[in-house]
């Protein structure tokens, strides 16, 4: 039996290549970013005076802001190998709760054009209420997924319906139309340093969300739980409570998005947002986060949110028939994920292969032998 020499061991401090790979992963990797640049360049070339104008760019950012906030939460959830179909209706419920609270607190209207004269205190309380409502639903999702161990798809499909039902019950099906004027003016359509307030909010959520996911213990545990829940548990990570927190985060962000939506539309939108769940999931997946957990990128999600919005905007500006837009959107989703897969595949064929077969659930033997030659001396 050979003895091994300790001089084998080499201390390698942050080899350049894997760090690049890690960043590539953080940026969502793949073709998505170039694709966005390409779309951008294309539309700019076709309609320079209309597409790449300051107005349109800031419009694009505002259009993205609410979905972006939802998608940040969704990224966390999908990174744990979960899924949250309830975000859109939780948004609606939260917006109703928030708007009702603000209306109740601001006394007997003073409502012109459906706005009230409520001050920032009331707005803060209403926002809190909305976030709390979202959090309650998020926590419910989390508990059912983590403790009752029901598949996330089923849990959130169920709460999808429940949240909508409660929203309709609460509001009696009537949109709350009188919302604080200050909220609408300052947040909904206001600007700060020339940038729309809603974009600031989304930016703040994104930056914090990105930092937390990629640089903190919470983020690293999120990936760990998604990568191998049992390993995380055995490492002493409180698995279930972490999952509950992640779903709660998604719910809370949906609640925040609810208030953003009220600010933007100056009303609740009970019959809207029904496809926000699928939009946010496709944004997250477009952005390179793995549906199987363990891998994810907030930056990728940002791009994933923008691609369909840019597409829609460009198509309308070009005057392409609306029906074709529906077709194109579906095709782009598939093509983008496919191209992304191809690129990653080419980059690290071996790893990818192994990963994929693990994902397609051939029972792999993890303690099983080297499929990489690195250890062969």
């Amino acid at each position, binding site marked *: 039996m050979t003895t091994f020499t300790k001089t*084998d*061991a080499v201390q390698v401090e942050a080899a350049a290549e894997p760090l690049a790979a890690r960043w590539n992963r953080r940026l969502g990797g793949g073709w998505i970013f170039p694709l966005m640049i390409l779309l951008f360049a294309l539309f700019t070339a076709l309609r320079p005076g209309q597409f790449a104008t300051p107005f349109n760019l800031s419009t694009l950012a505002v259009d993205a802001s609410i979905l972006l906030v939802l998608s940040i939460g969704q990224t966390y959830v999908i990174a744990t190998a979960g899924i949250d179909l309830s975000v859109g209706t939780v948004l609606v419920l939260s917006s109703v709760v928030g708007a009702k609270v603000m209306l109740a607190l601001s006394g007997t209207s003073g409502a012109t054009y459906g706005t009230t004269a409520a001050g920032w205190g009331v707005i803060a309380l209403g926002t809190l209420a909305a976030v709390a409502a979202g959090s309650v639903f998020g926590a419910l999702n989390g508990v059912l997924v983590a403790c009752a161990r029901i598949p996330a798809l089923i849990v959130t499909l169920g709460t999808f319906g429940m949240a909508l039902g409660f929203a309709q019950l609460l509001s009696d099906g009537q949109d709350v139309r009188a919302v604080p004027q200050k909220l609408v003016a300052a947040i909904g359509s206001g600007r700060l340093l020339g940038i729309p307030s809603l974009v600031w909010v989304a930016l703040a959520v994104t930056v914090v969300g990105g930092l937390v996911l990629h640089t903190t213990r919470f983020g690293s545990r999120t990936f760990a739980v998604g990568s191998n829940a049992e390993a995380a548990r055995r*490492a002493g990570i409180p698995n279930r409570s972490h999952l509950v927190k992640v779903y709660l985060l998604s719910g809370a962000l949906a609640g925040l998005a609810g208030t953003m939506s009220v600010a933007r539309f100056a009303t609740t939108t009970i019959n809207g947002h029904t496809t926000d769940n699928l939009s946010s999931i496709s944004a997250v997946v477009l952005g390179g986060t793995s549906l199987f957990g*363990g891998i994810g990128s907030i930056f990728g999600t940002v791009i994933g949110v923008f691609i369909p919005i840019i597409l829609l905007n460009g198509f309308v500006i070009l005057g392409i028939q609306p029906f074709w837009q529906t077709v194109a959107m579906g095709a782009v989703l598939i093509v983008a994920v496919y191209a992304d897969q191809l690129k990653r595949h080419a980059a690290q064929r071996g790893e990818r292969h192994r990963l994929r077969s693990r994902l397609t659930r051939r029972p792999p033997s993890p303690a099983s032998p080297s*499929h990489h030659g690195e250890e062969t001396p």
Partner: protein
Amino acid sequence: MTAPLLEARGLVRRFGHVQALDGADLTVYPGEICALIGDNGAGKSTLVKILSGAERPDEGTIHLNGEEVAFSSPADAQRAGIATVYQDLALAPELAAADNLFLGRELTVPGPLGRLGVLDRRRMRRESAALFQSLGVYLKSPDVPIASLSGGQRQSVAIARAALWSDKVIFMDEPTAALGVVQTGRVLDLVRSVRDRGIAVVLISHNMTQVLEVADRVEVLRLGRRVARFARGEASVDRLVTAMTSAPSTEENAP
């Protein structure tokens, strides 16, 4: 011999109508390599999971350094200085080796940011590289995901992880099952170097030659019960096989 470091008595664990442990005992002394052997399904992994807090016993007591303990989670056992290399390797394949090493006990930067949970990746990378070096493990970089490492490398990471977090006992559940001769040799050397640091190692293995080569003492489990114990030198392949397979009896060879 000195007083036992870890002593389990009369552990019982049922899964539905399967009796995985049926009054199992285990004694571990400080600074020894204790082999735990038994046929498939004898209850070795279940015993190890209970002693490392991953499962809870239905009955029985655990004493650590003479004091009774009860672990309600793996974190509990880790705090008590017990770490485990599980049979079904408990690593997160998408995370890097360094991240896996510190999983559940991440290092944070000093100051207020640290209290917010901001990771000190530099330090984790530095420390893991140092640890790997001191254990003689070769990794191209601590930054590549575990999924892209070889089986032997993954096993090494799991062992390094255990060595990092334990100062009393490390359980290793069939750590060499899929390894080649060279890699097996390395892992056994790792086991010895951990023992030489004063940490007790409980090694589960189906390879009797290996057990005889490396163990200071052997405990034999059969149908969820300890049926025999051998001191170094007392054991031979035949005696071990007989102990594992013959009808359960009272313990034969108390050391």
